[in-house]
């Protein structure tokens, strides 16, 4: 019976995916019942950062364009929805889409001059534009409240993208992650995904067989920026307080990069695994060291990047998949 079911699932959806999905729903519920709210919160963060890294991965993993400035897209999403919420009372459910549109505008500003060029200019421009966005956010304090940031009103109403129960936050993050993962999986198998992978492997060759490399890179950037900005709105609602220092720094972009790299780029399961590893480690370090050891996390991040690039450029995903397949076969 079980074997037959397994056979059925293998045909419909990948069994790995199904197991992961069941665990993803069950585990936070169990911790919630046990009353370990902090663990549920950490799991929420895992889903959320997996979602953001997934968005980043559309650009790096599929199109081969390295962005050091995704915190800017995240920050724009967070700020747009929060400003509209606090100043105009607009529900973040609507504001998040406007944030996404703003992020797309920024993506065009950074992508238009740099994606026409081959090579690494895009990576350099993202770091510059992220700094620019951060400085502008600090500068225009009559809209953004400058370095003080924005404190969101507490309504506890789902109408305003706020939930009382931590489990609801968790499932919202999971829902966003699932939707994006589904889109990513569709991209992987679509003509867009094929074109992007061709560009990633050899841009010159891709363009010589008639692929409009600029167009496809731009599409990847727009998708990536848009989804990251939606995530920004979620993050603002979850934490209830945003500052340029928390959503727009290079450190944030670095975390997104590490999650993508550690998990493995180019597949939609990679960022999810990366997030599980990095966020668990980060929260554990935070819980044990507290805030007293400034900079330790940066040293740790730097070492992680160097080691992953050197030892396992494909991330942990291939290893975990092989292990899972071995388990499933036996």
């Amino acid at each position, binding site marked *: 019976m079980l074997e037959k079911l397994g056979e059925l699932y293998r045909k419909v959806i990948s069994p790995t995916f199904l197991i992961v999905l069941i665990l993803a729903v069950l585990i936070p519920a169990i911790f919630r019942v046990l009353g370990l709210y902090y663990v549920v919160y950490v799991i929420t963060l895992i889903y959320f950062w997996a979602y953001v890294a997934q968005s980043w991965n559309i650009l790096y993993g599929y199109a081969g364009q390295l962005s050091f400035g995704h915190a800017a897209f995240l920050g724009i999403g967070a700020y747009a929805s929060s400003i509209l919420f606090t100043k105009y009372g607009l529900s973040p459910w609507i504001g998040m889409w406007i944030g996404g549109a703003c992020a797309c505008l920024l993506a065009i500003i950074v992508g238009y001059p740099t994606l026409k060029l081959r090579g690494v200019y895009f990576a350099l421009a993202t770091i510059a534009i992220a700094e620019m966005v951060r400085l502008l956010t600090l500068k225009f304090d009559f809209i953004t409240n400058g370095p003080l940031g924005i404190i969101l009103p507490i309504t506890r109403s789902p109408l305003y993208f706020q939930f009382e129960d931590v489990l609801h936050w968790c499932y919202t993050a999971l829902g966003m992650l699932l939707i994006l993962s589904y889109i990513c999986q569709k991209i992987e198998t679509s003509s867009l995904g094929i074109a992007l992978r061709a560009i990633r492997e050899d841009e010159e060759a891709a363009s010589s067989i008639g692929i409009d490399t600029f167009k496809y890179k731009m599409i990847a950037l727009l998708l990536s920026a848009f989804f990251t900005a939606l995530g920004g709105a979620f993050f603002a609602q979850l934490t209830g307080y945003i500052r340029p220092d928390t959503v727009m720094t290079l450190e944030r972009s670095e975390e997104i990069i590490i999650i993508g790299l550690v998990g493995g780029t180019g597949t939609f399961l990679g960022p999810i695994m990366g997030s599980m590893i990095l966020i668990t480690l980060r929260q554990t370090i935070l819980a044990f060291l507290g805030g007293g050891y400034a*900079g330790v996390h940066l040293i740790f*991040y730097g070492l992680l990047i160097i080691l992953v690039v050197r030892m396992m450029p494909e991330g942990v995903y291939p290893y975990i998949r092989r292990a899972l397949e071995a388990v499933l076969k036996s």
Partner: protein
Amino acid sequence: MLDVLAQIIAFGLVLGGIYALAATGLGLAWGIMHVINFAHGEWIMIAMYTTYWLVVLLGIDPFWTMPINIVLVAVIGYFTQKYLVEPVMKGGALATILTTFGLSSIMVGLAQALWKQNYYATPNPYPAMVLRLGIIRLSAAHLMAFIFSVAVISLVYIFFKKTFTGKAILATSELIGDPEVASLVGINTEKIRLLTLTLAGASAGVAGTLIATFYYIYPYVGLAWCLICFVVVVLGGLASFLGLFIAGLIIGVLEGLGAIIFGTAYSYLLVYAAFLIVLYLRPRGLMGRR
């Protein structure tokens, strides 16, 4: 109004000379071995902290710390190339970028752990010494840094044009020479790469010493300088010292104007905007072909 403008331009030019020196090491690594060193700003940062602590602890003149910084950062450059960059060279530009980015993160983290998020200023008499040249006023710190910068850039230029080793390095560059031909005529390209990043480190050591005399020192100071260096190198084009120098001057003046328009804390806004415009209009730099 005119004298304010003259002051901004004069100050911008002086600052720009220092930018050109700061960017020299980055431009060398980029132009010769296609390694974009994201840790370049942090190398400058380390030199700045070294100067600060030597001046504070020993009470010496900041300029005496220059030889120590040259050796220190050159050694860092040597080990970076040997143990971090060279092993991932085969992975392409993104692998080396990520590796040096990781190194920069480690160095920022170390600076934060050791010296906290404080702003330091090196105690030295030069910033307070103001020299008047007609309607223009410049501090001795800036002026001396500018003179040193021009001298060092000239030295580097002579090294590459006149000496055998310098020519050998240029021969391995993909832009100016040809790495395959270079290795055919017996140039050890791996050794050349090692030498290039060592030189880049040495120049960052000089730059850091000079900057420490007039600029605040804090863990993230490297990011601001690294971005400035990127802008200068891209604007100047990769294969030209003259281009680098002119680009430095332009960026210096732009930053001065930015400080007037946006305020000193946001003076880089104009520079970053210029970066995007340059990438759009002249991605090969001012001196490069379109």
